[in-house]
């Protein structure tokens, strides 16, 4: 018998926890704590405890599949590659679009980016960061010159006041929730503002529920109170910030007086004042946010407002402070870092910048050049182009994403993907999206590969291979390299192992420049930016100066705007979406984990008891929910934990997909959809 422990990092959220995979006679059979991890010290959430359960699921894809007469037929890799290569070659550069993946490694995102821009010469590459934190990347970059979480996870435990807005940290980043709890146990105050009384909110010293989409009004109100009471950090705003006077003018206007914001947000004026006092007078105050802030048509405004508050109180570049944007997926930070976005190469080097464009063209050495130095389409725009301008985009290559469940307005997504001439999907299971593909390529899962991923705190950590992929499945980097070779670019994709790809990434990416596998193999790993091989990495950003060329932080004066779609007589309820601790996004992994599935086997809609009474519906009753986009039937969860007039659904479940209802209204800058607010009606289902 052979038994070994393989230390690796978790494939679920962006916290970056480590655990051991237990491998018995070559097969993953369990997980065990890895107490040496500085991030989670061996502790994990339920998804981590049972992260081995789906790995050897009988549903894993084991062979390439080619669709013939509407049915999938097993094929050899050669057949699949030949078909894909001949099809791909038949399209013009900008008829092709690629979706990279926040689930796979940095190396593989880099490689797909290189494939799209170098082999296909297309401008169009994006991934699901668009749906979660596109507004963070844009908003924080505008505020600080770097679009990432400013502080480290460990730092949160040292804060004297933690302000959580739009994050259900206990369920979505549970081991960051632990740090919030540690801050509280150390005597820090905890403020949680959320439309729902979440498990996070239940631990708060001050909790208030508010109407989804009123964040800017709330944040402006807090800033107004802080300035009126003289709690602002005068030195910070005078020496390190630009735009303070304009900001001051807006936040001090009558609109944002606590009594007025009470009407807009539903938070009592007294609670707004208390929160302002705690944030304004604590020695340090950390702000944590996630999708409650970002997933709005005003996502970028929301993000900039959180940055405003933290600059105003001098909590930037400081231990226990910071704007802690909690990134969702395990490697969404890394996928962005790798340039799997339509506007940048790796390390946020702009596609439109002639020098950057030349740098990548030269480094890659494609004899026939790379894509034009122009921005491409965001995933949300790709879907619109597919439906609204048929024939412009014709073919798509999707790696490890499931837009058929994750994107807003699923009927629209379906229509979009059906408009494609040729779709290739590379995944570990036959997802809802894969089912629509012409060719499906079987990939290795996290337990079957090496590589790096970058957590929300910019910590770049290793995945380590524990077992071989099932059947003929391959690691994504192998598939992309082999396909590139089949298209005639073997020379540009010469990799023998994944480390060679990382070496190339480090060479072309200033913030990763000092990283090597040897350095990353330490349990502490490294936080970017890490510009040289001697550099210790950067757990806290913006100490002393921000990342803008002039070193200044930029404050933005922002007026509150309501969501794109608000309740009216026909659709009287505000609808918001999210996740639960048991499942991951579209459920392809967690719904195949027996323990997690047993906890929560399907979806629900949360309804306040008063609304339920008015509608004449009971707890656990099936109801019909309708928005302007579509209709679903789902069981109710009648609970006082949600505000009257607001309804919530998790989006994991295909059989009652919340995203049938959601709105594809986009933030004008980040092109992130408004998952967190639209209008619905709810009806009792009466037998015909």
């Amino acid at each position, binding site marked *: *018998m*052979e*038994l*070994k*422990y393989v*230390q690796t990092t978790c494939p679920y959220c962006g916290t970056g926890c480590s655990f*051991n995979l*237990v491998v*018995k006679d070559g097969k993953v*059979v*369990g997980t*065990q*704590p890895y*107490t*040496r*991890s*500085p991030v*989670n*010290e*061996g*502790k*994990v*959430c*339920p998804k*981590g*405890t*049972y992260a081995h359960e789906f790995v050897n699921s009988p549903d894993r894809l084991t062979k390439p599949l080619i669709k013939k007469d509407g049915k999938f037929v097993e094929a050899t890799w050669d057949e699949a590659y030949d078909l894909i290569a001949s099809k791909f070659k038949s399209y013009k550069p900008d008829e092709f679009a690629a979706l990279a993946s926040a689930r796979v490694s940095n190396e593989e995102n880099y490689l797909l980016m290189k494939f799209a821009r170098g082999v296909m010469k297309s401008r169009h590459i994006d991934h699901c960061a668009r749906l979660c934190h596109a507004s963070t990347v844009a908003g924080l970059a505008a505020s600080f010159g770097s679009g990432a979480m400013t502080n480290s996870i460990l730092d949160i435990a040292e804060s004297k006041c933690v302000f959580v807005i739009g994050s259900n940290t*206990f*369920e979505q980043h*549970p*081991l960051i*929730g*632990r740090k919030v*709890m*540690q801050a509280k*146990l150390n005597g820090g105050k905890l403020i949680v503002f959320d439309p729902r009384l979440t*498990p996070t909110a*239940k*631990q708060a010293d001050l909790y208030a529920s508010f109407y989804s989409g009123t964040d800017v009004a709330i944040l402006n109100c807090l800033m107004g109170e802080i300035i009126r009471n003289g709690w602002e950090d005068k030195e910070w705003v005078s020496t390190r910030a630009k735009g303070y006077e304009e900001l001051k003018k807006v936040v001090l206007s009558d609109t944002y007086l606590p009594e007025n914001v009470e009407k807009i947000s539903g938070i009592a004026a007294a609670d707004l004042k208390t929160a302002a006092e705690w944030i304004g007078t604590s020695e340090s105050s950390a702000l944590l946010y996630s999708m409650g802030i970002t997933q709005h048509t005003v996502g970028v405004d929301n993000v900039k407002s959180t940055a405003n508050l933290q600059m105003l109180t001098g909590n930037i570049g400081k231990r226990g402070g910071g704007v802690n944007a909690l990134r969702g997926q395990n490697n969404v930070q890394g996928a962005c870092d790798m340039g799997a976005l339509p506007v940048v190469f790796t390390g946020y080097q702009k596609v439109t910048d002639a020098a950057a464009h030349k740098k990548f063209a030269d480094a890659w050495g494609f004899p026939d050049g790379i894509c034009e130095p122009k921005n491409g389409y965001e995933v949300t725009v790709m879907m619109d182009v597919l439906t609204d301008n048929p024939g412009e985009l014709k073919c798509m290559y999707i790696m490890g994403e499931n837009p058929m469940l994750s994107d807003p307005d699923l009927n629209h997504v379906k229509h979009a993907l059906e408009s494609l001439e040729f779709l290739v999907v590379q995944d570990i299971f036959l997802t809802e999206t894969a089912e629509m593909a012409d060719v499906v390529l079987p990939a290795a899962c996290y337990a079957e590969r090496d590589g790096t991923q970058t957590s929300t705190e910019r910590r770049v950590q290793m995945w380590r291979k524990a077992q071989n992929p099932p059947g003929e499945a391959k690691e994504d980097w192998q598939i992309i390299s082999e396909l590139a070779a089949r298209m005639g670019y073997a020379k540009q994709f010469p990799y023998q192992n994944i480390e060679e790809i990382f070496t190339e990434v480090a060479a072309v990416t200033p913030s990763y420049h000092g990283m090597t596998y040897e350095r990353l*193999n*330490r*349990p502490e790993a490294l936080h970017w930016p890490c510009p040289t091989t001697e550099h210790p990495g950067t757990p806290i950003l913006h100490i002393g100066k921000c990342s803008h060329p002039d070193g200044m932080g930029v404050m933005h004066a922002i007026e509150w705007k309501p969501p794109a779609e608000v309740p009216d007589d026909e659709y009287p309820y505000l609808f918001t979406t999210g996740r*639960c*601790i*048991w499942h991951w996004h579209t459920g392809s992994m967690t719904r195949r984990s027996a*323990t997690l599935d*047993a*906890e*929560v086997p399907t979806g629900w809609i949360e309804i306040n008891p008063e609304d339920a009474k008015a509608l004449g519906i009971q707890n656990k009753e099936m109801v019909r929910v309708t928005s302007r986009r579509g209709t679903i039937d789902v069981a109710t969860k009648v609970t006082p934990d949600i505000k009257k007039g607001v309804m919530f659904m998790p989006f994991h479940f295909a059989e009652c997909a919340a995203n049938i209802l959601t709105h594809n209204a986009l933030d004008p800058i980040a092109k992130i959809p408004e998952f967190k607010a639209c209008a619905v009606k709810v009806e009792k289902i009466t037998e015909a």
Partner: protein
Amino acid sequence: MVAKGDTFYAWAADAACQERGECGGAVTALLTHALSSGMVDAVLAVKKGQDIYDAVPTLITDPAEIAQTSGSLHCGTLLLSKLVKEFLDGAKDMRIAIPVKGCDAMGLYELAKRNQVNLDNILMIGLNCGGSVSPVLARKMIREKFGVDPDDVVKEEIDKGQFIIVTKDGQHKGISMDELEEEGFGRRGNCRRCKMKVPRQADLACGNWGVIGDKAGKATFVEVCSEKGANLLDAAVKAGSLKTDAANPKGIEIRGKVENAMLKLGDKWRKRYFEGLGEGKDRLKKIMNDTSRCIKCYACIENCPICYCVECSTKKSYLVEPGQVPPPFMFHLIRYAHISDSCINCGQCEEHCAMEIPNSLFMHALQVDLQEMFGHTPGVDMELPVLALVEEKTERKRLADTGSDQIFNIFE
């Protein structure tokens, strides 16, 4: 002939083994002999992972690899017992030698009572243990209290009431454990309360306490605790891989004193921790308050050496509504009802709790009360536990579902 109760100074015959191992490398030599002579099929031991703060369990079938497990790692907070059940089929078809701390040995006994491991196939080399330190806290302690970069430390040890580090440039630095622990550093809470310092329920109990004179630091004090242990020691000496001397009577006395001092310290910590919990309603309130931040990660259950049911009651929807975070208090009540009479205070439920809930403290406090009331001490022998009142029919079915179970005779 060696017999149960005998005490020796022992050291490896092989010079390299002496060098690598702690205190003359006797344990390494014993394990090597057990494996190479065919007395066991495998050795389950702990080796150094990335650094001295990283302890990794490893299953060894090649005697040459045992050297990797030489030396001690006080920052390893592992419990090996449950791994035997979970991943080695309970040693049902395989004979395994395991170096065990007190908690490892106690866990194996409790699993054996429940027919989850086969003790006949397990050779326990007991290790005296004064406690362990969680790795991340240890690094913080070394940085903040010792003023040393934890990456520069090549060895740590707990000796004479001090936590001692040795840096790569050869410097020794020690700070009293009392001082460290007053400031929240030092050993884990359960280790502080532990009173299983010399695991005599193992086959041999080995350690450095009581090794004096010219053998100090060069030999291991071995107490023979079973016939199996006596046979191993005999065979290893006969084969020429282990050397022994009679233990110095003065050394035996000193060993007793050290053990007693450790037990007294354990009593002191128990008093302090248990009093901190309060009594009656106050205690209940504290437990309810602390468990209210539970995220139901199941780490307490998965890592508990007493939990073994195929059908866990916490997963029955009529007892605990599934999917809720935090789970209803019943989740924790079920654990107290099922575990507390047999809790061995290994600390795993607290060490791995994602939400800093002092689970081990709560359970241990209950266990100590139950022990006072019913006189049952878990983890020291094969005596069956005192179970709480149960519905016989349901309980029989539940236990039957687990396969076979020796606790059936509670109804006799």
